[in-house]
Structure formats: C-alpha cells, structure tokens
C-alpha cells in the first residue's frame, strides 16, 4: 500500500485539494498512523495500518469502506477517544493546525472541545432533552441561562430536531426514537461550536426527510468548520463531500476528489466497492 502514497501525495502538498479549498495549509495532518487494539489472549488487532491523509479547513471529507475496515477507529483517533479503550495503542502523527495531538502531554479536554464527535451509536444522557444539548456548554463553563437557552434552541434547530421536541424539552431524552436520538447527539455536538466535526454514520436511521435536512446542514456548516463523515451510502458521500477516502482492511486505499473517485477511481478495489461488487 505504501506504493499508493507517492502517487496520491505529490511533494508540494495536494494539488487537487489546493484547488478545492481556499486555505492551503491542512487543518488535520495524519502521518503514518497505526492503531492496535488488544485482542483476546494477548494478541493485537492491527486496526489501521500506515494511514496518511490530510483534511483541509472547510471541507467535507467522506470516509467509505466495508464494515470493520477501520473508519470509526480513524475518527476516534482524531479526538483521542481511543484513549478510553483499554489496551488500544496508537502510533504515528496526527497534527491539528501543526500541533501533535497524540503527544502525551497534549490537553485532550481542549482537543475534544475543538474536535467534536457524534458516535455511530447515539447515546443520549439520562437527562432531559434540554439538558442533553446544554451539557457541553455547561461543561465548558457557560453559566448564563439565557445564552444557554439560545444556543440549545439554535443547535436543535440546526439538527432538524426542534419542531419535534420544542414542546417537550423537559422530557427524558431516553424516550426519543433512534433517529431522533441521533439528531439530538448531533445537536449536542453542534451546541459547543467545534472547529472540526466528526460524524460517524449520522444518518443510519432510514428517514429521508431527516437525512435531507442533515445533508443541508452539513453543506451549511462547511462554511466555517471542517467535517469528516463516515457513511455507508455512496450517494450521500457523493452529495455532501468534496473529497472521499476509501478504507479497506485497515488501510487507506485511495483518497481524492469525490467526483473523480466516483467516476474514475484509481484503484480497482475502490471501483469494486463503489460499484457494489463487494462490501
């Protein structure tokens, strides 16, 4: 796979990306990233192998690939959520605006405030809907009640959940449906205004209206933040992203402009996956 890398990344940066994005310096630089999980009986799973990729400011990068290829693992590294998995080990470099976020003494709390994440499995807190969205704001020290209310309402609106919950903000969030819970988690992440947003299959609930609204939101958010989105839907990747990365068995097979990936993929494995021959 190392042979792919030079062709993907010419020495002077990524010309394709430079055309697509205004800012030349990447928001996130991932260099030679390896992730290991502790398996049973002392063995290790090599979940990501030598992944090198850049994410540019104000772009949407879609991650695609078959189940178990390491997409969620990759996302979790970007805000150090892998720290919470016992036995998980990360090697390589991840730079956020040039700073190495994998450094031991890097402040992960600040990192996670800048790099927000919505998990694959939404997990509302056993609190009210309002308190769920206000949680991050309060955790970051915001105490002004009116400001909290304003931001909660705004976040719920952006996540296309406001109309459904505006009359029951004090109701328990655990009573929401799966799709609503997912949008609640998106609202929760948006409320704290991160610079980078990591979305792990945010529209897995098959609701076309909510999906359309979320994709609209992504297009709108792109104006001021950087988004990395994992999706199982090729159509969605094509609709929302500027660039797409294809993962396969822990390796980054190909990354490039979404249009080019879906029309003229460089790798046959990418083509096989996109055309539905496997995965």
């Amino acid at each position: 796979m190392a042979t792919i890398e030079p062709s993907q990344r010419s020495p002077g940066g990524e010309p394709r990306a430079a055309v697509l994005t205004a800012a030349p310096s990447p928001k996130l630089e991932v260099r030679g990233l390896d992730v290991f999980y502790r398996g049973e009986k002392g063995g290790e799973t090599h979940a990501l192998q030598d992944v090198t990729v850049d994410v540019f400011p104000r772009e949407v990068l879609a991650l695609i690939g078959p189940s178990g290829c390491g997409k969620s693992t990759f996302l979790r590294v970007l805000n150090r959520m892998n720290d919470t998995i016992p036995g998980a080990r990360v090697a390589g470099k991840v730079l956020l605006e040039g700073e190495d976020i994998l450094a031991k003494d890097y402040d992960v709390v600040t990192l996670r405030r800048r790099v927000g994440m919505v998990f694959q499995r939404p997990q509302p807190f056993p609190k009210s809907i309002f308190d769920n969205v206000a949680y991050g704001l309060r955790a970051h020290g915001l105490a002004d009640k009116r400001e909290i209310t304003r931001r909660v309402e705004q976040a719920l609106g952006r996540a296309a959940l406001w109309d459904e919950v505006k009359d029951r903000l004090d109701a328990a969030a655990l009573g929401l449906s799966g799709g609503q819970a997912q949008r609640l988690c998106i609202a929760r992440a948006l409320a704290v205004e991160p610079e980078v947003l990591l979305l792990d299959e945010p529209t897995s609930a098959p609701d076309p209206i909510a999906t359309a609204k979320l994709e609209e939101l992504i297009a709108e958010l792109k104006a001021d933040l950087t988004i990395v989105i994992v999706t199982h839907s090729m159509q969605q990747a094509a609709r929302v992203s500027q660039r797409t990365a294809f993962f396969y068995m822990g390796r980054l097979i190909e990354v490039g402009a979404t249009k080019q990936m879906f029309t003229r993929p460089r790798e046959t494995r990418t083509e096989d996956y996109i055309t539905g021959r496997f995965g």
Partner: protein
Amino acid sequence: MSATSPSRSEQVPLAESAPREARESAAPAWRRSPPRWHGVAEALIKTTALVAIVAIVLIFVFIAAETLPLFTSHEVRAEVTPSTMAWKQTWGEAAARWSWQPASEIPKYSIAPLIIGSLKITVVAVLVGAPLGILAAIFTSQVAPRWLREILKPTIELLAGIPSVVIGVFALLVMATWTHRLFGLEHRLNAVVAGCALSLTIIPLVFTLAEDALSSVPKSFADASLALGASKMHTVLHVMVPAALPGIAAGVVLGFGRALGETMIVVMASGNAALVSWSLGVSTRTITATIAQEMAEVVHGSPHYVVLFALGAVLLLFAFATNVLAMRIVESFRRKRGGS
C-alpha cells in the same frame, strides 16, 4: 401447601408432553422437548421461594401474636397500654415525662427515649458511613487505576465480614478513648461512638451497592461526555453519579435499615442509658439493645415481655418503611430518567 406443589409440577410436563409429541412430526428431527429435570428444578425453586415467604409471614404472625395482649389483656393493660408507652406520664410525680424504667417499683415503659436513641445513633452512622461508602465507590469505580481497584474492592467488602462483636470491642476500647480525647463528650460511651462504630458496618453495604451501580453505567455515557470536551471529573459528577443515583440511594436507605437493626455494636458501645435527649454526647439506649438485654430476664407473658415484643413490632415497621422508601426512590428515579 408445600405437599401439593411437587405433585402438581410433576403433572405439568406430563400434561404438556402429549400434544407436543403430536406436533413433533412437523418439527425438525433435532428438536427435543426440554429435559425432565427442568420441571424438577422449577418445583425446587418455587418451593424454596415459598419457604422463605412462609418464614417471613410466620415471624410477622409470631410478633403480632405476642404483642396482642397489649391491646386485649386486662392484666397487662393495668400496667401498660399503647398510649402510656407513647405519651408523657406523671408516674405519680408532679411533672409529666417520658421514662423507660421497666424494673423500677412503678414500671415505666415510655418508648420515646428508645426511639430517640435508635434514631440518633442510626443518623450518626448514616451521616458518617454513607458519604465514606459513596466516595470510596466513586473513587474505586471511576478514578482508581485497575490494579488499585482490584485491591480496594475486596478489601472494603471484607469489612462486611467482620463480626459485629469485634467492631463492638474495638469501639468500646479504642474508638471511645479517641472520641473522648478528641471531643471530650459528656459520657465516654455515647451516640457518636456507637454511630461511628455502626458506620463501619454500613460502609461496605453502601460501597458495594454504589460501586455496582456506578460500574454498570454503560461506558458509552462516559465516552459521550468526554467527547463533548467535559473533563473526567465533570463526567463522573454530572453523568456517571446521576446515572447511578438509584443504586446509590437504595444503598443509603438499606444502610439506614441495617444500622437501625444492628444490635451487638450498640449494646457494647452506646452506654445504654435510656435518656430523653437529642445530645449526641450522652449515653444512649436503642430499641434493639433494649430487646437484646432485657428479653433474657423477663418473665414469659408479663407486661414487660409484651412491651418488648411491641418494641420488636415497631422495629419491624421501621424496617418495612425503609425498604418501601428504598423501592420508591429507585422507582421515582427510573421514571424521571425515562425508559431503560
């Protein structure tokens, strides 16, 4: 009742097996009806549960029956009635007061000093023990590294295995001296000493239940909080502890019940004087210690004997109320959280 249940459960599989064989022609060949011993096991489990329920009911009936003369027997009521137990009496003197002196010339059976004593000591025990147990549980399950957790958990739980008489001796000889030196309270043995000694018995109880509750909060809750940029401590205090609150609260209430019912430690460490005083520094007599110490000397069927059973009934009511309260608390938390 127990004689009929085994024979009935033997009939159940027999009765079911006939139609099942008829169905079996359509079912795949590997499918078998459940083995016979499942029926036996079920009967055993049912019988055991029944025995436990019968035992509890018998205890209730026994205590109620022995308390009954307080309401029915003229001989007993000449000396003591529920109302003389409850309200202040003059006892042939000028001022009305509460007094527990069952062995004096005019036997005095006021229950107030004993209830006050029990509550004083129990409240001290819970105020000392519950925070310690909860904090230890939070530390063990949320903060301590794994190796330390594996030492702490069994060590604290081992505390539950210490015989209460040993804690009583420790309280009598060591804790009493310390508290006397530190605070210089009125009596050497008092509600503080007994309460602190009792807290040693409820710490492991509160700890175990709180630790279980905290450890069973899904990791995804913590992850969701951390991913929002909340600190470890914020996550523990605002997500993990609230999510575990029903279990923690149940632990505290059960700890209260445990402390209320504990006997040996209070007999040894409380000083046993039935004073009507809310002061924590004076000798104190509890309901349990009274029953334990006086039951042995009392004449069977005498008014004193009946009164001791009435005390037992009161204790049982308290214990019942605490358990109902614990269930209520858990239930209300559940409802507030919604679902799950």
